């Protein structure tokens, strides 16, 4: 049985329990966890492209990322139990800014980043700028991702960046922003490094930022 195909297909069928079982079976059968991670990434990319094309919708995207995150935890536990440390491309701190409770987009970005080999520290929603700055410092994050859905809360992103500057760590972290209330021009205005229109964009952008 090709467990890699099985894992991928269960994510595409939004079968969370079966994805978990298949990921565990793949590990038990001796598959390299990194290879399993690769097919998770492939599955999420297919779903992401379907969403961008308007063929798939938010429920499918949320569910696929939920399946993926569950499977990734299994893989990371295996890596740790082998006495190894999961190799990550970079550490990304994610947060929805203070005053904003929206997190669906950020959760999908988190899943995509994890599947693509990033260590993700998700601070959740309504996060004060001090907490974001502290998390970036503590985790030595190479990338900070900020999300906001409301025009009135997006301005808080500028405060986060000022706080990061005040902490003296602006040169150590690249900042990408996203969410319905943001755009390229806004990113430029507040001094962010990049803007991503979709969750799938975040992967490409993260790759560019760590080069």
């Amino acid at each position: 049985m090709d467990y890699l195909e099985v894992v991928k297909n269960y994510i595409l069928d939004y079968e969370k329990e079966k994805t978990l079982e298949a990921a565990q079976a793949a590990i038990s059968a001796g598959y390299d966890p990194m290879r399993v991670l690769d097919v998770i990434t492939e599955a999420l990319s297919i779903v992401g492209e379907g969403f961008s094309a308007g063929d798939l919708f938010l429920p499918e995207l949320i569910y696929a990322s939920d399946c993926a995150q569950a499977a990734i935890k299994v893989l990371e536990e295996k890596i740790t139990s082998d006495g190894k440390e999961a190799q990550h491309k970079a550490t990304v701190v994610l947060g929805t800014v203070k005053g904003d409770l929206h997190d669906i987009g950020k959760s999908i970005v988190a899943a995509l980043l994890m599947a693509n080999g990033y260590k993700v520290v998700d601070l959740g929603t309504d996060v004060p700028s001090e907490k974001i700055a502290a998390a970036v410092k503590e985790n030595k994050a190479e990338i900070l991702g900020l999300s906001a859905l409301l025009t009135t809360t997006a301005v808080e992103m500028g405060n986060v960046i000022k706080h990061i500057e005040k902490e003296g760590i602006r040169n150590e972290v690249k900042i990408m922003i996203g969410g319905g209330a943001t755009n390229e021009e806004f990113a430029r205005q507040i001094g962010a490094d990049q803007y991503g229109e979709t969750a799938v964009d975040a992967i490409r952008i993260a790759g560019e930022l760590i080069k």
Partner: protein
Amino acid sequence: MNSKERVRKALCRDGLPDRVPIEFDLCRSLLDAFGQKLGIPVHYTNAIYEDITYRLSGNEIRIALGSDCVHVGASLPRDYEHPKDSNGYIVNEFGMKMRPGPIYIEVIKHPLADVTNAQEVIDFQFPDPLAEGRYDDAEKYIQTYGKDYFIIGNMELTMYDMMHELVGTEKLLMDLALGAEYIEPLIEKTKDFALSVGKKLVAMGVDGVWAGDDFGAQNGMIMSPKMWRKYFKERYREVYAELKAINPNVVIMQHCDGAVAPILDEWIEVGLEVFNPVQPNVPGHDPEDLKSRFGHKMSFWGAIDQQQLLPYGTLEEIAVDIESKIKILGEGGGYMCSPAHIIQQDTSMEKVEAFINAVKKYGVY
């Protein structure tokens, strides 16, 4: 021609009104500011759900400014106040904990956040839609303004919106995709609650009933047309039919944010008569396209951008857009001009007035 006649003629596409009717909702700070400017006290109607409060409140201010509509709905029961916690966060009658955000009060705790089975939904207590005093304000407004103004009865959070505030959006969308066992009983329960409100308002004599569920987002639908069809299409047929059974002349007005052109044909098929808010600048909502595809079988209410244009546009840009929307969507009637949502605090009073004046200037037939 008074406001009531103007709106009815426009929305029923029953000949041309004298001009395109106007409607708008204002956030708290704008209601307060205009109340002060006009010397009119703002009457706030605390509604069953906070968003609806801004639909129902400040009718006197809005008609003084030029609105052709008066809004009524289900308020809190007489002498009832929301309990508050130590942070001042309220818990509404549905058990949703709500915190004031920059614009709205937002749900921060969903009472059915952990729901898994049908029995939990069956056991979950909804408030009484016909509790004593809920319709005191509605009665007062219908009596005072019913002769001259088009009375809109609010029954928003009809099904899906109530469900996602009860459960949480992410979990609900996953569970809709999975067909979780609690989904069907929960849709029925929310529908029955909303229908009780809607039927009461129709019986009281409203001119139009405003149902509301947001199936669209900025770039497309939140759920697939297939999912909408599976869970909501026939239920909307049932809802509209029950309202029409009480008054066949009540106008069926449907609020749905976001890009929802893919389901409009079917929604009209089950009884939608007026589409609101015709969110601008989203895929599938080109005004010319919408008018040519649907204008002979549906009327439009909305279409003015309050995300970018009203807060950040110049007065000239606002006037140009309104003139254009009226020309396209109002051709031959069938259009009530309004912003696509509650005008937020990032829009100046000057621009609110500019919007109203532009409709009056360019909307004459």
